[in-house]
């Protein structure tokens, strides 16, 4: 089984440890992984802010990279529900005016998986041999939940981690308030929404909040750390890559 990594720009630049965790995890599960360094960004920031032309020009580059990768690999896997949604749902729209690019985007979309879905639906695995000591809660990222329909796979994976005490977050499916450029265009509203999420996290008494999207983790983590909270944010990939019951292999 060969997989090409769609690492996402936010992981590449801000959270490389998430990419490394995903790499280690997939390798441990027997997947042969590759990384094409011509990849940059899926274009979502521009697209969501209304700059369709700019988004399309960037998306074309991504399409080229992954269409080429799929000539030698079986799947493309990304540690993000929102980036996967951008490609699967919006690329065919972006390229509606070009039959070849549209077909190519539909093809790439059909082989593209978000990490939790890849593990549970393609590799058919729930227990990845991970270990983590502590109380863990989970935040449903909006695109992952509502566009990709993925609510159970991440929970199955988290519950199978040895040592984890899983607790459901109140309003787990309510937005964290990031929303891309919304977080800086309407920062007060974004922060007010985040504050509600943080209150739920604190009520859960979890040691860590897990999510499948680094954008949500940046928002929640940014608020938690500003509050001086001891609650840590973990990407699902990091939780699943960890095998040390003392959590020493997590940064």
């Amino acid at each position, binding site marked *: 089984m060969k997989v090409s990594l769609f690492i996402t720009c936010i992981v590449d630049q*801000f959270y490389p440890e998430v990419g490394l965790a995903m790499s280690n995890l997939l390798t441990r599960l027997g997947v042969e992984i590759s990384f094409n360094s011509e990849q940059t960004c899926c274009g979502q920031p521009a697209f969501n802010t209304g700059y369709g032309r700019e988004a399309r020009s960037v998306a074309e580059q991504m399409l080229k990279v992954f269409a080429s990768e799929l000539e030698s690999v079986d799947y493309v896997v990304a540690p993000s529900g929102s980036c996967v949604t951008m490609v699967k749902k919006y690329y065919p729209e972006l390229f509606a005016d070009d039959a070849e690019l549209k077909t190519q985007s539909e093809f790439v979309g059909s082989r593209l998986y978000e990490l939790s879905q890849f593990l549970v639906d393609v590799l058919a695995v729930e227990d990845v041999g991970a270990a983590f000591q502590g109380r863990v809660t989970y935040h449903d990222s909006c695109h992952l939940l509502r566009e990709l329909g993925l609510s159970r796979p991440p929970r199955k994976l988290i519950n199978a981690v040895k040592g984890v005490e899983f607790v459901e977050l109140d309003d787990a499916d309510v937005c964290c308030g990031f929303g891309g450029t919304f977080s800086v265009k309407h920062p007060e509203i974004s922060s007010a929404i985040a504050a509600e999420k943080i209150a739920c996290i604190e009520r859960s008494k979890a040691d860590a909040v897990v999510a499948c999207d680094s954008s949500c983790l940046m928002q929640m983590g940014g608020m938690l750390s500003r509050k001086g909270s001891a609650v840590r944010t973990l990407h699902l990939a990091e939780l699943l890559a960890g095998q040390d019951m003392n959590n020493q292999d997590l940064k």
Partner: protein
Amino acid sequence: MTVESQVQPERFVEDSRRALTNPLLQRALSIATVKATSARYEAVTHVGVANWEQLRERAHTIKKHTIENLDFYLEQFAANVERHGGKVHWANTAADACKYVVELAQRRGIGEIVKSKSMMTEEIGLNEALEHAGINPVETDLGEYIVQLANERPSHINMPAIHKTRSDVADLFAEKLGVERTEEIPEMTALARRILRARFAEAQMGVTGVNYAVADTGTIVLVENEGNIRLTTSLPRIHVAIMGIEKVVPSLRDVGVFMQLLSRSASGQKMCSYVSFLTGARSSTNDEAPDEFHVVLVDNGRVEMLADEQLRESLYCIRCGACLNVCPVYRKIGGHAYGWVYPGPIGAVLTPQMIGLERATSQPFASSLCGACGDVCPVKIKLPDMLLHLRQRIKENGHAKAENGHLLERLSFRLWAMAMRSPRRYRVIARLGRIVQGVTGLRVPQWSNTRDLPPLARRSFREQWRQRPH
């Protein structure tokens, strides 16, 4: 379009900021929206998710068919209304619709009218038009009565006074009605009822909106919990029903589909307490109808929306308010901040279309695109996609020119695209970013005012991948 003094969508940023710093509003919003969404969720669970999804799909299909054949169904509806002795007035603009109602009241020598809650009458600014002509409009829905007394606008599609606490209302009644202050809800309700009953008894004209206009019978359907619509439409001798042209449905059977969706979506009720099916004016075969029955069909920009393939679906809305209740933004800023009649996600889609894109450039962007609205919409309007379309139009058609920072943003995204299109430029920008970070630190004040920003990783993933043992 509507009375200018009340239209302030340009003030979204200031008004939303102010709303966030109002703890009483925050509390009121939280209580009401949580109650409504939990009740809705329970009602949907009770119906069964599969059944519910089938109902939504059916409703969407009926709306799609009707909207795409609107001219046919409107003409059929109008013909049937007239066949049953009603009068139909086709109003192109809000002013036109108001003029019809005002002139009718004047011709009949009417000095006061009673009205039920109707977002359409808010949209056209009917109360102001009537007052301007010396005619007194009395709101009979309790929530609307409260906001009327307070000289405010409703802040929610179904719960007009959601922004008011019990204490606010107690103060208001004591001040405006000259009674002893009480916070007991049964007492406050009884007081409003006494006052309104007297107005019902004397009113010569009742004005309502329309929930569904049934084309094949000329019947209008109205739903309510308080009974004020029953009184508004049966005591006065004249009934005027004002509706957007998109309210028509082909047949009574179709109404059945929407009835299963509307109340559950709005408040978790299986059905509203009173449902009125009203057809025509008094006749030998129908002695319960009022002497006169008028229907005002309002365009006010809807025909333009109809022609817009990307945004046409926003005409499917049955005004249930579910999208407001579930919206994380609405829950924090309330309805007034949106600056016009319709708040929340549907408001963010309707306001730019009806008031003008250049006047409502903030609303489509004031969303995290979480999609909760699209999930709960009983007629499956793709609200998040519409917000995206509006954003594109605002940015690419230059509507946001006047906005501060717009040129800088446009330039930034052009440069961003140039960098992201090329792996080499991407790497150069990434390196530059780290240099800047090392020297001055990366600052994004809009973020860092309330949240910590993580630094760019010392070594990016792609740099570390290169060193990975293969």
